[in-house]
């Protein structure tokens, strides 16, 4: 690598490090002095202690398990119909064109406003969070699958037919290689919004889960613990996103 590029990278790392340090120092100073937000902004050190306290507490893992279960359920129940609908809408041009504006409008709508309907239908328990996660995950997956279907060159399909491939072979040799990347990309986005859907549902009304825990700390004015939960949730979301990005890159290199 040329020295100039190494320097630029080292510079970037230094700038990031200094920025991070600056933010932490400023946060600590503002929090300790209580000048700007008073009790509402606990110092960074207090939040760090609160994070540590959560990580060693047993009840935290009960809430974590609940949230992870709801996210997993929502993701599966959203992604599977998403792929199926995407394949159907992508295969029939008129069907896809007819559905497009409705899917676009629904995909844009904040999914959390569907929570009241979901709560009326399945109650206020974990089922409602799974359903909200599923509704959230469905749209990015269906949109990505349709786009993937439309991007398959017609000649690939014709070649497959010319070779008299059976439906199973068509899926394995024509559709799967062409669709793997768009579908995995859609799944990555879908998992991200499923996490948001579940957490927001828990924050609005729940009796377990990380969202409920954050809400509980909020009601107790335990702000350091609230900030800690938000930080942990962000770390988990970032982890999920990184893992899915790795999957996307694998699909990229394989197909």
């Amino acid at each position, binding site marked *: 690598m040329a020295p100039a590029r190494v320097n*630029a990278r080292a*510079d*970037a*790392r230094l*700038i*990031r490090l200094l*920025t991070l340090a600056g933010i932490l120092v400023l946060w600590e100073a503002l929090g300790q002095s209580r000048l700007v*937000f008073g009790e*509402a*902004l606990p110092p960074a050190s207090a939040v760090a202690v609160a994070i540590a306290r959560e990580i060693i507490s047993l009840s935290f893992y009960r809430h974590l398990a609940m949230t992870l279960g709801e996210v997993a359920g929502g993701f599966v129940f959203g992604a599977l119909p998403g792929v199926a609908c995407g394949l159907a809408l992508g295969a029939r041009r*008129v*069907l896809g*064109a*007819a*559905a*497009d*504006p*409705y899917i*676009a*409008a*629904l995909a*844009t*709508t*904040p999914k*959390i*406003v*569907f*929570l*009241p*309907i979901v*709560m*009326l*239908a399945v109650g206020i328990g974990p089922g409602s969070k799974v359903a909200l996660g599923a509704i959230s995950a469905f749209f990015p997956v269906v949109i990505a699958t349709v786009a993937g279907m439309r991007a398959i060159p017609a000649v690939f399909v014709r070649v497959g037919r010319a070779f008299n491939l059976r439906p199973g072979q068509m899926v394995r040799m024509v559709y799967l290689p062409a669709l793997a990347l768009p579908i995995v990309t859609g799944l990555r986005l879908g998992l*991200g919004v499923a*996490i*948001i859907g579940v*957490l*927001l549902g828990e*924050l*609005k009304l729940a009796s377990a889960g990380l969202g409920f825990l*954050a*809400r509980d700390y*909020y009601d107790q004015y335990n*702000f350091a613990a*609230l*900030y800690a939960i*938000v930080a942990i*949730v*962000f770390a988990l*979301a*970032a982890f999920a*996103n990184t893992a899915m990005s790795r999957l996307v890159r694998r699909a990229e290199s394989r197909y």
Partner: protein
Amino acid sequence: MRSRFAPALWGLAALAALAAALEAVVRLGLVPKLVVAAPSDTALAIWRLAAEEDLFRALGATLLTALGAVAAAVAVGLPAGYWLYKHPRFGLAYRNWLGALFAAPLVLVYPVVLVLFGRTYVSTGFMGFVVGLVAIVLYTREGLAAVSPTLVRVGRAFNLTPRQEFWKILLPAGTPMIFTGLRLGTIYALVNIIGVEYLINFGGLGFVVSETYDKFDTPGMYGAILFVILVSGGMLWLLKRIQLWLRPA
């Protein structure tokens, strides 16, 4: 002509069939009325909410909050994006962070924002501002960085001042991408604001959804949710039209 409008007609026909089926299912008592509102009742409820002026006041409150949030995001985001373009070291350093923030579930910080600003328009507006800002900074920097170096060199050859360079070269050439940032930022801001309004039971359209649920006004709730879908879809359509107009195909 026929082929161009056929999908839209099919879509409307399917929607009408779906509404008729739903109407029948509810009227026949196959699903409880408290859970699913009949489409006819939902339409009447929108009319009722509109007549009582709640709905349009709420729409105005939401749109004004979004407007303020986007205006603030532009006022901060455009200069910030320009600064990151002018100082490539910082641009390079913060690029990944911006990308990570863009993908991050920013709406989940709302409890913290609620602690800082309370149940006020500042909180809902701030939640819109944050998501709008990230999109605008990110796309402004990328848009300016993608401006052809030839154009920039032409500007240098004419001895343009930095101000002239910005207004006559960079901004016009970067507009398509910068507007993409503005479009995404506006949509995300609007969506986040409505979502947070619902979550904290305060403000415009999101508040109406929350209120109607709390009052067991199922048709009103369905009407309010349908209205939110119409507003989100309408905003998406409008911004796409503006973008097409900015860059005629």
